[in-house]
């Protein structure tokens, strides 16, 4: 049993690119992998067990050790600050976190409100800029907030910028670039060292750009 690696995969946007990368690295994943509605997918040929989680929850599963590894966006890593190893930049699902709002607006001086799915990241960013803001946590469709007057600014993920444009918003500041990372539980990193090192090595070969130099 101990030879099975449990990998937490984020459902949605990152999933496809992550499974492509695993295939490229030579792992034999079944075709039904991609459109399965199951939450747990066993791949006995590779001694893998995949668990499909909400992207925001991936580091939680990994930190508690119920998943040995996980694939998580840097945005999630920054927000959650979990005690896990961030071993490899997979260079997939590139995007960035940005401050956006309606054109020609300023932060309200009486109640400078910022709506976001990333309250910790947003709070830290505005603190560093020396501005005192009030953070409002939303769980999705963040672009609504400035349009209907909940907040003057939002902090959200931008990949193409299309969503912002379509909703009449503009980007004010770019906070940080985001890619997906391979993360590992500290205990698994020791107890399953060989299998994990092999996985990292193989993924590293197919990662584009900033691969680990030899």
């Amino acid at each position, binding site marked *: 049993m101990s030879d099975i690696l449990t990998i937490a995969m984020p459902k949605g946007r990152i999933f496809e690119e992550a499974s492509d990368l695993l295939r490229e690295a030579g792992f034999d994943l079944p075709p039904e992998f991609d459109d399965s509605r199951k939450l747990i997918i066993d791949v006995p040929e590779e001694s893998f067990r995949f668990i499909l989680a909400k992207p925001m929850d991936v580091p939680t599963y990994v930190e508690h*050790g119920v998943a040995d590894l996980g694939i998580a966006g840097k945005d999630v890593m920054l927000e959650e600050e979990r005690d896990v190893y961030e071993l490899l930049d997979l260079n997939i699902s590139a995007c960035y976190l940005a401050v956006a709002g309606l054109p020609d607006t300023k932060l309200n001086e009486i109640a400078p409100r910022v709506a976001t799915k990333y309250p910790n990241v947003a709070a830290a960013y505005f603190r560093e800029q020396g501005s005192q803001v009030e953070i409002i946590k939303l769980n999705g469709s963040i672009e609504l907030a400035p349009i209907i007057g909940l907040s003057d600014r939002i902090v959200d993920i931008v990949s193409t910028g299309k969503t912002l444009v379509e909703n009449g918003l503009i980007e004010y500041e770019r906070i940080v670039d985001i890619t997906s990372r391979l993360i590992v539980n500290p205990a698994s990193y020791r107890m399953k060292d060989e299998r994990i090192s092999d996985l990292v090595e193989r993924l590293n070969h197919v990662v584009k750009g900033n691969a*680990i*130099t030899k």
Partner: protein
Amino acid sequence: MSSLFMFEKPLGMRDTLPETYETKNKVKRKMETDIKKWGYQFIETPTLEYYETVGTASAILDQQLFKLLDQQGHTLVLRPDMTAPIARVAASKLLTEQLPLRLAYNASVFRAQQREGGRPAEFEQIGVEYIGDKTISADGEGIALMISSLKETGLKSFQLSIGHIGFVQTFFLQILGTKDRADALTKYLYEKNYVGYRQHVDKLSLSSIDKQRLHQFLKLRGGKEVIQLAYDLIENNKGKNAIDELKQLWEILEDYEETGRVKLDLTLVSHMSYYTGILYEVYAEGVGFPIGSGGRYDLLLEKFGKSTGATGFAIRMDHLLEALGEIEKTKDIHCILFSGDRRKEAFELAKEKRASGIKVITQDINGVDNVDACTKQYSEISLLVGKAGMEVVK
């Protein structure tokens, strides 16, 4: 705020019910017995300490301390670890008499939790502190004793990672020149962020050879061969000393015949400033968090006015129990049900059985509504009711 339900507990607090208590105590006894066999003496210290002394000296982050005020307005803390209190006792009372000191403890420590469950705010630790010996033999003894006491508990699959913070600091300082720059890089290791480390290194204005050396550093994980790889990476003598120490430690562990469960990991940074030399963590199969950690903390005693070396480790009972996995279901209690006229007989029988080490309860049959439900809980039943002779029911 809504009113609390009667069963609620503060965040991170746990109850220990009878079966868990029994299991935990057995494990503790096994470890304690082993630690005593190595000549360590157990001590106790108060649950409350001054924030200014023990609170600030401890390795635990400020926001994790439970703080309260005494009547004079001093800030107190619930002890967040046992190392700082023991350093306080050692420096003020014990160090005058004998050196080196081998002390042990078995106590609850307290750390405030902000996040969800799975992280108790109060948990028990068993550990040792070996004070007043700067040799690597002392580090080796700590590691060997940790392995020995874990084996005593019956734990099968566990693994130690050993690092050396002195090596990390000198190696980084050698390449980066200033302590600030070295600390900035060390922080990535502390945060376990290798990706950030590599990106940071790539951005530094260094020769490509030095960048290469910093990248290579992340590969210093594995068995004995890591020692040679580390020698190859360093240039000055100070970094060499740290590797000499690791080499010596490895030889000591070979003499203990305990290298099988040990890996070297020079990227291991458990704390930003607390440890000063060799440090280690221990992991077990099936538990996502380290079950224990330890290392050399030569600067702590200075905070209490004594300058001497010290090393020690602590095992977390909660994580260890999780790793051991099984809760013992003990039902080995003998129950004597008696009626009033045979009470004396029941007490005599109980006394006799207790003297031979059997757990016995005596139960007045009039105090039980449902005799069958009551007797089910016990391994053996004696009925001393009415005039007839003793009947053993089960």
